[in-house]
């Protein structure tokens, strides 16, 4: 569950990214975040895993109040959220297996569980045969699926994706979306910022549109609503 109440965010350079955001996302929902570039989508996403701190307002993530979150508790928050980035953010010098295992090592899982879980998620994203490769040996689509595998390996209740298909060709994008739909079908909340009109209009879900720091639309089964 994600709840934002009267959230404002002004950056130190004076730019106001968000002004008065109110959002309530239930467990198991699939939500697109759309809007023009620079409207505040990324800030909205970053607030959820505490890469940015709101200037004012309340944010609740899985009953954790981010206002009261101390710096040393940030890792605890991030372990409950799987994050997928446009540029994958894989550790370049680790193998695929080690990249995914890292998310389990930080929560001190026993090694036998780690092995089992990593092989399970690799199977889930269809890349079991790439376990020993390093990220630069993989295609963009494969790298993104590895980063998705890393995001879901510790079974988070929430997966956040910031333009996950931004660097991928249309065909690969659909494979990624299929994977996200599977993850969501198992009860994981999925929040995805995107610029893809095609995806939003084809795979119909709840759409939250952010324009100049405000929520302009919030519709179930919504449309993309922009020309590009």
């Amino acid at each position, binding site marked *: 569950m994600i709840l934002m109440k009267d959230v404002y965010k002004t950056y130190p350079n004076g730019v106001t990214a968000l002004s008065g955001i109110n959002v309530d996302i239930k467990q198991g929902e699939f939500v697109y975040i759309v809007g023009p570039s620079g409207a505040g989508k990324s800030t909205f996403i970053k607030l959820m895993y505490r*890469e940015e701190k709101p200037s004012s307002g309340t944010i609740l993530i899985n009953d954790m109040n981010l206002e009261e979150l101390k710096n040393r508790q*940030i*890792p605890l928050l*991030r372990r409950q959220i799987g994050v997928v980035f446009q540029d994958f953010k894989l550790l*370049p010098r680790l193998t695929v297996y080690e990249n995914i295992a890292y998310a389990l*090592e*930080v929560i001190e899982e026993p090694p036998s569980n780690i092995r089992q879980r990593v092989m399970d998620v690799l199977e889930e994203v269809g890349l079991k045969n790439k376990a020993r490769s390093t990220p630069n040996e993989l295609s963009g689509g494969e790298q993104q699926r590895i980063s998705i595998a890393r995001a879901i390996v510790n079974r988070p209740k929430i997966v956040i994706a910031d333009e996950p298909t931004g660097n991928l060709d249309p065909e690969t994008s659909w494979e990624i979306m299929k994977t996200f739909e599977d993850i969501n079908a198992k009860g994981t909340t999925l929040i995805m910022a995107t610029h893809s009109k095609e995806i939003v209009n084809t795979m119909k879900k709840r759409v939250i549109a952010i324009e100049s720091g405000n929520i302009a639309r919030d519709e179930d089964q919504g449309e993309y609503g922009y020309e590009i």
Partner: protein
Amino acid sequence: MKFRTLMRHIRVGCKNIIRNGWMTIASIGAVTTTLILVAVFLALVLNLNEIAKNIENDVEIKTLVELGTSDEEVIALGKQLEAIEGVDSVTFSSNDEELQSLIKSMGDEGTTWELFEQDNPLNHAFIVRAKVPQDTERIAEEIQSLDNINRVVFGKDVVEQLFKFNNYARVIGIVLIVALVFTAIFLISNTIKITIIARSAEIGIMKLVGATNGFIRWPFFIEGLLLGVLGSVIPIAIVLGGYYYLDSAVIDTISFSFVELLPFNPFAWQLSLLILAIGAIIGVWGSVMSIRKFLRV
């Protein structure tokens, strides 16, 4: 932290050492170079210190008793000397003993002095040692003021200069060693910083995946420790080998009676342990200092 997590950090730290290749070799090289310098200086300063201490401890005040002083007065004088503050020991040496040691020190020519055995012109003497060598001069002055004293002899100028020299040598040695250690830390933290800057993006990713600062820091800590320990291997070999050679070969041929090196066992081992410890500390400090900046997010 669980034990298996500690094992994981050690494993990852070792892996990083191998994965960093040339940077590892550069860091170890920096540690090795500085530790060799530190080791040589330490060996030098500690030995100088030891030699200085030996000479200082040999400083004694020879008190010559006035001729014609009665035995009772001589005994009383001995008591007075012992009562002076800071005096460690007072040894009586009768005029006969004085003559014997004089004859002995003359070697072959000493026999000519044997004539004096019939009519000994020498004074009785007290050999006085100070507890602290630096008190020698003050004690000598106090003795001078006592009755029945003929002369008080101690190498005043020599002793004072020796003390001065020793103090300078000590201070300079310590300053040099401290400066070297700091240079080493600076060098190593810079070298490690280069490897960490290359990995700063990775550290960011680790934090996004939910790693605590401690979890990220541990492998770097292990890596620094290993760099320091590996970097101290060659200096330790040089210390052990070089000192063994110096101790056995060189000293036998030179054999100054007053130059006595600290014995190989335990000194060389203690020095090796110290070098290992300094290596480990600069390795750890260097890596922990340089990662600190990247952990602030």
